[in-house]
């Protein structure tokens, strides 16, 4: 059985559909019932969602602009 540490190491693969078989099932199941891993998965999903949104944001953001002198 995979512990929390091993599950969290695989959450990124799970998000990309890279896991198969029992491993995929176990990681999904564990991340649903373990509060800590569930929180990490939610946080990871949010991060990936923000990254996806950057695709349609070609304009230079405030974060990228050089500081005004």
């Amino acid at each position, binding site marked *: 059985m995979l512990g929390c*540490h091993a599950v969290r190491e695989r959450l*990124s693969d799970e998000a990309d559909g890279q896991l198969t078989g029992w491993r995929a099932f176990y990681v999904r199941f564990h991340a649903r019932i373990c509060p800590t891993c569930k929180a990490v998965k939610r946080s990871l999903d949010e991060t990936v969602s923000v990254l996806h949104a950057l695709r349609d944001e070609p304009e230079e953001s405030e974060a990228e602009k050089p500081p005004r002198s």
Partner: protein
Amino acid sequence: MARGEPPPGVLSDADIREATPALRAYARRAVGDAAVAADLVQETLLAAVASPSFEGRSRVRTWLIGILSHKVVDHLRSAGRWRTTDVDEAAPADLLDLPAHPSPESALARRQAMDVVQRALGDLPPRERLAVLLIDVEGVERTETCNVLGVQPTHLRILLHRGRHRLRKALEHAGMSRSP
């Protein structure tokens, strides 16, 4: 084919105009310098226009991102920023820490989260940064990403895992990630 249109598989001016903002954004995020990014995009477009290898089978943006990525890697390598040890370093201890604060759902919060992530992208090691930019932002296939970065699929998996988790930590520290 209408008069004045290029034949299939040949880049048109419209293709280039449409793709250029995205190329500039990608290059800027990858190398962290707007002037260098502009030069790399220019080189990419020149190479693309001269290249016979675009056969129209992939999207123009994806194809151009591929060419640009190789130039980005060449630039980082020549600048001494493309270390071969990135993948072998042990993962930082805080990569698996717990999320911190709740965050409101709103357009403003979303915009702020994007700013946090863009800033944090610049702090990632180059390979992790490119892995995240190519796969998560540009939607490039893992096989092509491995080719660009010169890594095996198992290494790419590690780069992506670490890069995403560093960005996740940045969002959490900024108070922009939901708690359970």
